């Protein structure tokens, strides 16, 4: 070591040089990582979700004609997700909104909008809620786990299935 310039420099100067090189190169690498990952700070993301009946004969095709619109919800990990779900069936048919573990959610279920609405029930930390015709619900949770998770109607499987995509 003493044969190199390392040994000739004073301790304070060595520390100063090392600190400057480390901080500058660290900031450069940090800028690069930030650019690559493009993370957004966690935020509240609101979605409107509906059921949809496709125009085909369920008996003939032997599958339900119900689907979710949209069938994919994409958020960043840490986001607070609010879903306004409405059962817009033209016939008296119920639908559930159920999520795969580990996700559970809080929900406020509202009464039939044609009869004035109003709160029908409040639920905390549940895996699913059921809505009747013309009922709505506000579902909220925090996307704490990255990955792809199903949300589905337990009554209309396998067609009424959507996917929550949480980017980690």
């Amino acid at each position, binding site marked *: 070591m003493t044969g190199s310039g390392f040994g000739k420099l004073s301790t304070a100067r060595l520390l100063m040089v090392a600190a400057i090189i*480390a901080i500058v190169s660290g900031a450069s690498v940090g800028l690069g990582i930030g650019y690559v*990952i493009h*993370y957004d700070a966690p935020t509240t993301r609101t979605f409107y979700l509906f059921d949809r009946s496709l125009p085909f004969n369920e008996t003939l095709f032997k599958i339900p004609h119900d689907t979710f619109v949209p069938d994919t919800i994409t958020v960043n990990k840490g986001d607070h997700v609010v879903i306004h779900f409405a059962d817009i069936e033209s016939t008296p048919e119920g639908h559930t909104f159920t999520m795969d573990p580990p996700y559970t959610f809080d929900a406020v279920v509202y009464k039939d909008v044609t009869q004035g609405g109003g709160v029908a029930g409040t639920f905390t930390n549940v895996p699913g809620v059921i809505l009747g015709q013309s009922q709505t619900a506000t579902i909220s949770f925090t996307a704490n786990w990255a990955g792809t998770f199903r949300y589905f109607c337990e009554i209309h499987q396998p067609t009424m299935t959507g996917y929550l995509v949480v980017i980690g």
Partner: protein
Amino acid sequence: MKYLRWSAVALLLVIGILDFYYGNSFAGFYENLWYVMGGIYIFAALVIAANIEPHFSQLTVFAYTLFLWSVWATVALETGTGLDVVAYADKAIEAILAVNMVLLFRNSRAGLIV
């Protein structure tokens, strides 16, 4: 002054374990880098404990600590990532480690027993 070396080793091990915990707790590309950081800290703890090339290794650990602090601060400012209790604790201990390494390096270069 021997305690400065062992306190550095202890701090390096604590930060290494915290970095592993962080990498394990939060999924994602950026968080996975914390595994690498933690691994290097634990390796550094062994090198400092063994007193291998002390002048070089102590200065390198000091620079590595500031390097990671600077990376974290830049990413946090740019993206808002890594602003949580675990990261704050990790960076607070890193700051203490940087001061520890300065004292250790100065004593070491002055020829004191470290």
